[in-house]
């Protein structure tokens, strides 16, 4: 199925290359709205652990797996990310550093800074921090983290993934990360709930956002963006979505992001998700993201699916404008994106 999707996407890409240039933004009620995708990944094949490489290889037929290193490195490059953004009509995007040697691998802060430098008007970096030997090197890692946030250009936020980095939401030994982020006015994007990646921790202390509430209360100056809004991807359920909405309603410093909810894997739950966001009155707290680039055409199809779901749920153009770009600009202190 995935291979067919890839081939189809490649054919579409080829056809679109012969047609008109993509038009920026998405059309809603006769007007075009700007879009920012806060959640994209970069990295390298070499920086991926063997089990994650195997997962990446599931999308490639036997006999062609020797191409994976080349394809992965090309696919996660700045050039291809920008090309995918163009094809989707997306104005700008966040690009995440990751330090998850157990699961999804490593894309260093410097590596992300180099990617973002390809077009700093459209790409924004999110720094991260290595945590797996915290008893030994926490002081060194915290210093490197703060240095990355202050010295590297275009680092606008922080990326953490408790389930991938295998540290508990309620482990106070790591709270200094939030203190630094708040002091430097860098919003913290945190992966919530599960993922299907091998090695991901599935237990509630790593996935249930209520375990984060103590930190949310203790660091009111720190903005917490609850990534995936509690979408339990491993079980394909909205397990923690209501908890995320509840936290976003009760705390001014909590926001949400719907990464991967526009993917085919979430097709059955997406209508329910957008309905809960609207019913929960947290549209002003939702910052659009996709968790791309994943495979050719993913960024574009995620956006199309998400916008279609919002339209089906009777979101107004103003509500979509907030989710697709305005909330991002407000939270990160950036000018509104214009088409």
């Amino acid at each position: 199925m995935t291979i067919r999707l890839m081939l189809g996407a490649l054919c579409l890409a080829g056809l679109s290359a012969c047609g008109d240039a993509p038009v920026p933004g998405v059309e809603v009620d006769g007007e075009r709205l700007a879009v920012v995708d806060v959640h994209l990944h970069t990295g390298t094949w070499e920086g991926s652990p063997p089990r994650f490489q195997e997962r990446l290889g599931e999308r490639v037929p036997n006999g062609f797996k020797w191409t994976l290193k080349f394809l992965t490195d090309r696919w996660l490059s700045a050039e291809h990310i920008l090309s995918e953004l163009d094809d989707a009509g997306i104005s700008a995007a966040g690009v995440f550093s990751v330090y998850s040697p157990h699961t999804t691998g490593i894309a260093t802060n410097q590596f992300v800074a180099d990617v973002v430098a390809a077009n700093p008007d459209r790409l924004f970096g999110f720094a991260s921090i290595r945590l797996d030997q915290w008893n030994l090197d926490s002081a060194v890692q915290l210093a490197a983290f703060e240095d990355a946030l202050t010295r590297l250009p275009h680092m606008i936020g922080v990326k953490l993934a408790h389930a991938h980095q295998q540290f508990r939401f309620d482990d106070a030994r790591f709270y200094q990360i939030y203190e630094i982020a708040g002091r430097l006015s860098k919003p913290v994007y945190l992966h919530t709930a599960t993922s299907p990646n091998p090695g991901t921790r599935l237990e509630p202390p790593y996935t249930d956002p209520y375990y984060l509430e103590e930190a949310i209360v203790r660091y009111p100056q720190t903005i917490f963006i609850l990534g995936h809004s509690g979408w339990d991807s491993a079980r394909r359920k909205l397990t923690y979505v209501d908890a995320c909405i509840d936290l976003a309603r009760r705390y001014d410093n909590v926001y949400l992001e719907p990464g991967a909810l526009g993917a085919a894997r979430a097709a059955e739950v997406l209508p329910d998700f957008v309905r809960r966001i609207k019913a929960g009155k947290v549209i002003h707290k939702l910052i659009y993201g996709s968790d791309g680039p994943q495979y050719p055409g993913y960024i574009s199809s995620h956006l199309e699916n998400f916008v279609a779901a919002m339209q089906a749920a009777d979101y107004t153009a103003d509500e979509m404008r907030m989710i697709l770009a305005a909330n991002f600009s407000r939270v990160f202190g950036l000018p509104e994106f214009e088409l």
Partner: protein
Amino acid sequence: MTVKRPATFVATACLAGVLAACGAAEAPPTPVVISGTINVPDGVPTDGKVTVNLYHAWALDGDLRHPIEEIESFEATAGAYRHAFAYPSDRGEGLLIYAWLDVDGDGALCSPTVRIDRAGLTEVRGFPAAEVTADIDLAVPCAAPNWFYPPASAD
């Protein structure tokens, strides 16, 4: 002659690739039996379920080298335990035994508001070995494996 060389090179490379693929079989796992005692501090109820997780102490190389790589888990009770498992020696080094006691029976190692479950970790010395003995003291509330390992004063 100039035509044959690339053809020979390609054929050799393909054959080498096939042979390399055939030779990439994983090493068979090593049978290991662990046993010992799971100790609970005085005053802590001991009738709850104990979850035991087995980990490699370290895995992978270079920048990806990291501690605490999961092997498998099983359930036990406080007191004597014994467990046989297949140790995947090609996926990491060393052996850590981590366990936690579900004192309140909610299925999670502490909730945001109830913090009475206990955890502990033992690094097995003298590993690899076919049979090892290791006691585990469940003394620390709500502690994840990385609370214990690697220790601050790593040797």
